[in-house]
């Protein structure tokens, strides 16, 4: 039972990643799509960690999930000029 735990958790995260990617391509508002893309990146980072690559996981968490999401919302707020959806 104990050795079945990590494959089960990996499968859970992979399914969640597919769900988040589905939300990202399906939804109309661009802010929700960007949030879902950030979630895909975050779950990918946890999967890198489960496959025993902590350095790749840290880079993916810092750049893919943190910096890209922050930069995208920053630029989106500047470009639209206060017009929200």
């Amino acid at each position, binding site marked *: 039972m*104990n050795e079945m735990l990590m494959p089960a*958790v990996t499968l859970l995260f992979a399914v969640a990643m597919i769900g988040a990617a589905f939300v990202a391509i399906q939804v109309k508002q661009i802010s929700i799509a960007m*949030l879902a893309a950030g979630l895909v990146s*975050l779950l990918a980072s946890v999967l890198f960690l489960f496959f025993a690559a902590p350095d790749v996981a840290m880079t993916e968490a810092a750049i893919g999930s943190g910096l890209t999401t922050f930069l995208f919302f920053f630029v989106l707020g500047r470009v639209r000029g206060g017009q929200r959806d």
Partner: protein
Amino acid sequence: MVETMIVIAAVLAGIAFLLALARFIKGPSTFDRVIAFDVLTVVSITFIVLSALIEERGIYLDIALVYALLSFLGVIAIARYLEGRF
């Protein structure tokens, strides 16, 4: 015995993960999705700690530290964008 308790904790956290994911997929407004995103990040920190316990490698906890910082920055940026204050 401790391994069984770790499995029970992982199952409970997995159910919480699935419920938050359901709110993320369904959520009517953007704010619902942001709070689901926050909960998913914190549950991911839990899974990282549990995997560090299973694999007995303390270096995994550094990624949990990065997560605890990044979720804060992301949610602050999203809240400022949704207020329209960038």
